[in-house]
């Protein structure tokens, strides 16, 4: 066998693939061929490294040099400089957005150094399409160990670890398993919830794409613990790459005899099937998801009975989130005490967050519970782009709430967030800056839940519609006195009277933004003014004459001919034609276009 000079790991997560990671890979293979060192360099795909906005990215081992924003043209440089001459290519390294400091290796950059990786332990290290590489990193050892324990011992370990469900509700996982183990009925089932409906979250997708075996192993241990012989993955159809990698992983595990009859020579048998979602948010709710697997409309039903007693085809069923299951193998291997030493008093372990929105380093991160939002946004996340001010973070998606700047130091865990009316949620973490209008954010989420309401129960169907109507009025400058109170009242009714979690939590984004940003609501209603200058009905665009250089770009990009001007003359915007699309504002190279309050400007 040829001596391997280096291993080049290329991130093959969805985000990097969409920024053409495979084109870079092809170019690299070609460059290696041309340099005559193809046999000496291993080029491997790996799971999401987490630095999604820097993609495509590659890590060159043994030194662990981390290259970012790679273009196919860069392949030859890396081969000639780094791989042949051992010289690191400085211009392709990561640069800290605020300090401009350059970091040569992945483990040093603040984005990664600040994290603690349990769930993401194999990301950027193994090839997700190779079961051998998973096994080489203690893969399926936890399953083997669990099979030497009694199911009760397994459940006890998970209970003592303090692990709580990562799908949103935070229910203790060990307790859930115990209920299902004790429930009468046969067969029993395990379902992995990979529906990931929060629009702005991609934790579960990345785990399934980057380390599918870790979730499969967790599911099998759950199956052993509760006495099930069959498991289902339910993955949303929008995740084709996750589905493909999971299918492959299942096939590999089957070929190794890790799924099937008499696993590892014991009398435990377990089989797994993959089912796809079909684009309905409510199907992330467990009873709706079960209805969907059964081939029906994904409508939730009242609980109790809980799925642990009466689930899939009315049999006892444990349903767990992807990330929950990915925590199981490390807990079994390292013990309950190890896991419960991480995190805070009632929130044990780590949480994976999908960091997105107005933050420099968007991507996937894993931090211990109790980490502050400030650390996440300003250290891991590298701060807010364009020197803008942090306004709020939104957690928990359409069921969640916002965390304003005054709570930047709050420890992120289940209890602390609940106290301020937000939730940990499944892990979507959207950062908003001063340009984001909080009333519009509330409207956005409510429109989402309104359109995703399955329509079965009136409080949710009608109540959210009424709330949405009010919010739309406010945003259009037609808000009336008493609207805020009406929203609160309706919100409380929808919360109390809805059948399932979708309706019960739908008012949260509205109530939470009213709680912290009531002044923004009042400005919209009383002054017909949008403080973030984002609501179209309340702003106008105009040229700042001093700054205009008559370059003509605004006139060129304006889709309706509202931006006008003769060569070498200061341009202007015809307010009667302007549709306020903002293209000129975004494109003007001199910052000569401003947004003004429409009502101020009239007087």
């Amino acid at each position, binding site marked *: 066998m040829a001596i391997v000079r280096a291993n080049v790991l290329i991130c093959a997560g969805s985000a990097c693939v969409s920024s053409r990671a495979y084109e870079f890979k092809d170019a690299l293979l070609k460059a290696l061929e041309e340099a005559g060192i193809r046999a000496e360099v291993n080029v491997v795909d790996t799971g999401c490294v987490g630095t999604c906005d820097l993609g495509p990215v590659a890590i060159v081992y043994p030194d662990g040099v981390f290259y970012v924003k790679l273009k196919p043209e860069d392949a030859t440089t890396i081969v000639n400089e780094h791989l042949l001459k051992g010289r690191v290519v400085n211009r392709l390294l990561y640069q800290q957005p605020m300090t401009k400091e350059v970091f040569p290796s992945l483990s040093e950059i603040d984005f990664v150094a600040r994290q603690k990786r349990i769930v993401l332990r194999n990301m950027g290290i193994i090839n997700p399409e190779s079961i051998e590489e998973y096994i080489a990193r203690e893969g399926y050892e936890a399953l083997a160990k669990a099979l030497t324990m009694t199911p009760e011992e397994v459940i006890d370990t998970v209970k003592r670890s303090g692990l709580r469900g990562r799908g949103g509700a935070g229910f203790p996982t060990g307790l859930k398993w115990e209920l299902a183990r004790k429930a009468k009925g046969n067969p029993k089932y395990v379902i992995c919830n990979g529906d990931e409906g929060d629009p702005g979250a991609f934790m579960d997708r990345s785990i399934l794409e980057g380390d599918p075996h870790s979730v499969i192993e967790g599911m099998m241990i759950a199956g052993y613990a509760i006495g099930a012989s069959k498991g289902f993955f339910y993955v949303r159809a929008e995740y084709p790459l996750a589905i493909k990698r999971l299918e492959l992983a299942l096939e590999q595990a089957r070929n190794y005899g890790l799924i099937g009859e008499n696993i590892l020579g014991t009398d435990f048998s377990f089989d797994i099937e993959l089912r796809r979602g079909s684009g309905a948010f409510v199907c992330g709710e467990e009873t709706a998801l079960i209805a969907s697997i059964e081939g029906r409309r994904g409508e939730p039903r009242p609980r109790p009975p809980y799925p642990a007693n009466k689930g899939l085809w009315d049999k006892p069923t444990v349903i767990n989130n992807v990330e929950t299951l990915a925590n199981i193998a490390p807990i079994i291997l390292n013990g309950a005490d190890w896991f419960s030493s991480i995190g805070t008093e009632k929130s044990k372990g780590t949480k994976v967050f999908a960091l997105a929105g107005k933050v420099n380093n968007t991507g996937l991160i894993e931090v211990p519970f109790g980490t502050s939002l400030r650390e996440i946004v300003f250290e891991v996340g590298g701060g807010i782009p364009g020197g803008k001010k942090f306004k709020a973070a939104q957690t928990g998606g359409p069921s969640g709430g916002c965390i304003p700047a005054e709570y930047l130091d709050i420890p992120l865990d289940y209890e602390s967030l609940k106290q301020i009316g937000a939730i940990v949620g499944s892990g979507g973490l*959207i950062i908003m800056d001063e340009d984001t209008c909080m009333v519009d954010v509330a409207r956005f989420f409510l429109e989402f839940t309104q359109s995703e309401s*399955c329509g079965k129960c009136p409080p949710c169907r009608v109540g959210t519609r009424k709330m949405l109507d009010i919010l739309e009025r406010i945003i259009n400058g037609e808000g009336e006195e008493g609207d805020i109170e009406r929203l609160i009242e309706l919100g409380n009714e929808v919360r109390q009277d809805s059948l399932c979690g979708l309706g019960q939590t739908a008012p949260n984004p509205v109530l939470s933004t009213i709680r912290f940003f009531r002044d923004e609501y009042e400005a919209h209603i009383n002054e017909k003014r949008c403080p973030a200058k984002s609501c179209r009905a309340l702003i106008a665009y105009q040229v700042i004459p001093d700054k205009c250089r008559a370059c003509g770009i605004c006139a060129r990009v304006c889709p309706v001919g509202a931006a006008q001007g003769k060569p070498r003359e200061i341009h202007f915007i015809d307010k009667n034609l302007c549709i306020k699309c903002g293209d000129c504002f975004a494109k003007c190279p001199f910052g000569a276009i401003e947004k003004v309050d429409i009502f101020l400007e009239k007087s």
Partner: protein
Amino acid sequence: MDPVQKRLVDEIIANWKDKPGALMPVLQEIQEKLGYLPSDAMEEVSRCLNIPLTEIYGVATFYHFFSLKPKGKYKIQVCEGTACYVKGAKRVLEKFEEVLGIKVGEVTPDGKFSIESVRCIGACSHAPAIMVNDQVHGRMNSEKVLQLIKSLK
């Protein structure tokens, strides 16, 4: 359905027929292979799986993934998830409508383009993101919309 389509549909049904909860995967595969759910295909499914047609319509209309009409050759899906929304997805969607002269949910008369709005395609770090068939395009803006349509025309 033409004979080729009919054979495809029959094959799909035969593959799943005896499994519990077969309806969803059968409809999903038909949607994928044919691009939509033709009414005679649903009648066929109803007959073979012994499920009332009304129930099949109930399922087909409940889930966004299914469509009862064919989509464009280039299926444009504009993400309106949270991350994309706060980074200006609304304008991106509008620009597609403006350039193609159709509204979201419609198909151009030549059958070439259709626009849909979807919720999070998991490319949040490249917001605002869109998908054309299976290809993700990130960090969209009005200019890129124009370029993209030009390159596909």
